[in-house]
Structure formats: structure tokens, C-alpha cells
């Protein structure tokens, strides 16, 4: 519970609480004032999203204040949900069964054990090297050559995105930055807060000013106005949070820019996979947001890049 003794972390969490209260007040006012055509579906969706945000913030805050174990367990569960959504969506053949079983019950737990015990060297290579070859071997043992490359690639992609990339969020706890020992929970909060704010702000700017579609085929709801407004405002937010990080204000802003841009492309990539499979959302577990994968697609792409650049520039 050391995290609770960190006043900066408490300030950040209080700030999120204030934002949530304000969002709830605004949405309840909007819901109470239906337009000329009756209650709008956009407002209903907004209210559902805010309700789900309360739940997500409570769960995430609890994980954060319990320190390492809570965060590792929470992200392991999120990986599990995301991977099951991803694999459900991608066709597999009976010969993949052993490889899929290994992905869920061997690779996923082991990657988070490595994250939990903070064994960086093994953590960094386990999925790209050992799991990669293991999945290829398990899939070939089934003796089915049809679509072999596609089938194994899908499982390997699922493991990279849903497990390996996402595990870089709790792995932020193992980075040893001089003068910042015991405060890494704030880095975790930084990447999640900036990334998720960027998603929300892109949505808000898009709804307010959105005119020109940025990727009409891949993601019809994304607009240039939403993208630029969201990226700039979330980067400004990141810069404004420099006091809670080991960064100067401009470095915090640059990291936030990196997180938002990577997050945007993460959303676009995962969206391309959805369109290819002919669905709108990966699932329906989070009200108003779709599935787990729909909520964390941006995080999956921003967290590993943030992690490694942070390690490169700040660990001597």
C-alpha cells in the first residue's frame, strides 16, 4: 500500500475522480434534455460510456494502490479477455487446438509471472522467441497444412498484441529510474491516462467538429478534426502532468504525443482486423465501449514503445 503514501499519485487519482464527477453531471443534464427528435442515441451511448468509465477507474485504481500484484493480475485478466475476443473472431481449425490451449494457459500466465517477478531479460524475449516457436510447433504437430501460415500467424499476432504488448503496462513497474524508486505506479497511470484521454478527446473533438474522415474504409468514425484535436489536447494534458513523472514538461509532452499517436494507429490497426472480419466491435463486455479489445487497442500499441523509449533514455 506504499502507493497510498505517494501524494502525487493521490492528486492524480483525485483529479480523475473530479473529471468523472463532471462528466457524470454533464451527461445527466444532456440526458434530461432530449432534443426535438427525442433522446439521441449519441447521448445514450455517452451516458453508458461514462458509467463504464466509473467501473474501469475504480478497478484500475484499486489495482494501482495494491502495488505490483494487483496491477499484474488486472492486466493478466485484461489480456485473457482480449485474447479470447481476438481468437474468437479469427477462424481456426481443429489442428490448432493444442496451440490455442498453450496460448491461453501456458504463454499468457507465464508472461505475467515474468512481469510479476520483474525478470526483464526473459520477459522481453519470451513471447517473440519461445512462444513464437512453440506455437509454430504445436500447430504443425496437428498435421494440417491448410492455411498453415495464416493460422499460426493469427495466434502469434493475438499473443503479441493481447498478451506481450499489454504486459508492458504493468512491466513499467520494473523500470529503475534513478531518483524515482517506488514511484513507478505513476508511470503506469501516465500511459493509461494519456492514452485513454486521447481516445475520449478524439471522440469528443470528432463529435463536435468532425467533418473530414481520416480513414473512411478502416474506421468511418475517425475524423481529421477529432484526430488533431484529440492528439494535441491529450499531449497538452501529458505535458501538464510532468510533475508526477521523472520527465521535464517538454519531455512529458513528447512522450504523451508518442502515446497518443501510437494509440491512434493501434486503434486503426485493430479496426482493420475487425473490418476484415466484418464486425464493428470485438465484443460486448463493456457497456457502450464494445469489448475489452475495443477499449485497449490504443494501449497495446503505445505501451511497449513508451516502455522501451523510457528504458533507453532514462535508465543509465
Amino acid at each position, binding site marked *: 500500500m506504499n502507493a497510498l503514501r505517494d501524494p502525487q499519485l493521490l492528486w492524480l487519482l483525485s483529479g480523475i475522480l473530479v473529471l468523472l464527477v463532471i462528466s457524470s453531471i454533464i451527461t445527466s443534464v444532456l440526458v434530461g434534455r432530449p432534443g426535438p427528435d427525442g433522446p439521441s442515441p449519441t447521448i445514450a451511448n455517452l451516458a453508458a460510456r461514462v458509467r463504464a468509465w466509473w467501473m474501469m477507474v475504480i478497478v484500475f485504481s484499486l489495482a494501482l494502490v495494491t502495488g505490483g500484484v494487483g496491477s499484474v493480475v488486472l492486466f493478466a485478466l485484461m489480456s*485473457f479477455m482480449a485474447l*479470447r475476443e481476438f481468437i*474468437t473472431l479469427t477462424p*481456426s481449425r*481443429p489442428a490448432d487446438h*493444442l496451440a490455442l*490451449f498453450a496460448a491461453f494457459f501456458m504463454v499468457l500466465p507465464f508472461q505475467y509471472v515474468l512481469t510479476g517477478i520483474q525478470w526483464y531479460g526473459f520477459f522481453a524475449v519470451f513471447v517473440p522467441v519461445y512462444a513464437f516457436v512453440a506455437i509454430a510447433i504445436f500447430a504443425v504437430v496437428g498435421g494440417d497444412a491448410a492455411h498453415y501460415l495464416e493460422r499460426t500467424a493469427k495466434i502469434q499476432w493475438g499473443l503479441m498484441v493481447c498478451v506481450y504488448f499489454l504486459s508492458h503496462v504493468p512491466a513499467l513497474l520494473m523500470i529503475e529510474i534513478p531518483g524515482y524508486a517506488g514511484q513507478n505506479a505513476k508511470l503506469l497511470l501516465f500511459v493509461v491516462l494519456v492514452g485513454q484521454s486521447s481516445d475520449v478527446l478524439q471522440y469528443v473533438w470528432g463529435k463536435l467538429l468532425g467533418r473530414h474522415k481520416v480513414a473512411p474504409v478502416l474506421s468511418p468514425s475517425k475524423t481529421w478534426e477529432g484526430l488533431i484535436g484529440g492528439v494535441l489536447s491529450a499531449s497538452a494534458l501529458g505535458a501538464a502532468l510532468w510533475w508526477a513523472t521523472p520527465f521535464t514538461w517538454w519531455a512529458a509532452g513528447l512522450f504523451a504525443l508518442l502515446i497518443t499517436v501510437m494509440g491512434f494507429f493501434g486503434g486503426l490497426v485493430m479496426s482493420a482486423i475487425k473490418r476484415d472480419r466484418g464486425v464493428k466491435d470485438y465484443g460486448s463486455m463493456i457497456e457502450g465501449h464494445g469489448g475489452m479489445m475495443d477499449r485497449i487497442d490504443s494501449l497495446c500499441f503505445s505501451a511497449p514503445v513508451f516502455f522501451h523509449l523510457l528504458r533507453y533514455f532514462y535508465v543509465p
Partner: protein
Amino acid sequence: MPIQFHISNSRGILASFLRNLCGVRPLPLAALPASGPCIFYANHSSHLDFAVLWAALPEAWRERTRPVAGRDYWEKTAVHRGIAYGIFRAVLIERKHVTVACNPITAMCAALDAGDSLIVFPEGTRGDGLSVGAFKPGIHHLARSRPSVKLVPVFLENLNRIMPKGTALPVPLIATAAIGAPLAAVDGETKEAFLARARAALVALHTP
């Protein structure tokens, strides 16, 4: 009745475990007929099929629904018998050497007459999960024996990927159970026409 409470409670926990393992959503009470008993019939590709359909039912229905399964398989060992009789209260039927004394229809009708609903798999055996096989005539005999009991199709999806034939290792993907409207009664229908219509109603619930 502390023991009975304990049993029904552990059945509730098992149902919740099965729903989480297979990611299947509980069927809303409104999607089911107003009153039972009825015969739920589903496509069959996994040992988990009957358990997941059972787990997806609302609790009041679940406590009064018994899966129908092959005696030859489920009486093999004490573990099989324990699962079939002890947990699921299965109606075990003879599949191979049917005589008057062990007529499956008699056993199923007895359960329906006692007020219990049934889960049946009219394909008779597990398929590959890619297509729904032809229906065996048993469901026609059953429907004719109890014309007032509603026949309700339930399409189970992805269970062939979660635990296909020939493996005991589950892969926790997201399964769905789609329930349809009860099959309407048609007078003077031939056996073949009935079986084709029942199968078509089930297949129609499949949304790719």
C-alpha cells in the same frame, strides 16, 4: 433442507463457471416460453454442449431441465455416472439396442410428464461443428407423443472450437447460445417434412 440448498447452490456455481469458461451470456427469461415444460433441441459438436445450454438457462428453468444423453457413454465409469446423474440429472437413453423395455421415448416422456424440460441433440451424435447434420427420427416420435410440449431450437456456436471431439482440453473462446421461437405445430406433416423443418429452424438461428 440444508443439504438440498447446498446442492442447488453448487449447481449455480457450476453454471456460472461454465458460462465464464465459455463466455456465453445467460438467456433472458423473456426469450423462453411463458411456461414449461418444453424440449430444447440444439446442434451438437462438443461434450460441453449440454452443459453450456443448461448453464445458459435462467435458474428456475435450469433446475427443471434435464439433458438427454447416451447411456453407453455416460454409464462407462463412476465419474461419468456421477456427472450424468448426480450433477445434471440426465435422462440416459439406450442408443444401440433399443427394445420395448428400454424405449428412449418412454423415458423422455416420463420426464416431461413429471414437469421437467429436456435438452436433446437430434443429430444423435457430435458433428464437426461446421454444419448441422441430418436429424434422427427420435425427435419426431417425441413430438408426436407429447404434442402439447413446445419444441424450442437453440443454436450453439463456437463450442466445437472450445472443446472439439477428441480432446478434453478446453480453449476459452466466446460461445453463443441463440434461442428461437417454439416450433409451430403443423397438422398432417410427414416425418421427413417435420425433421427438415425442425432442422431449418435451428440452422436459421446461426448468424455468421
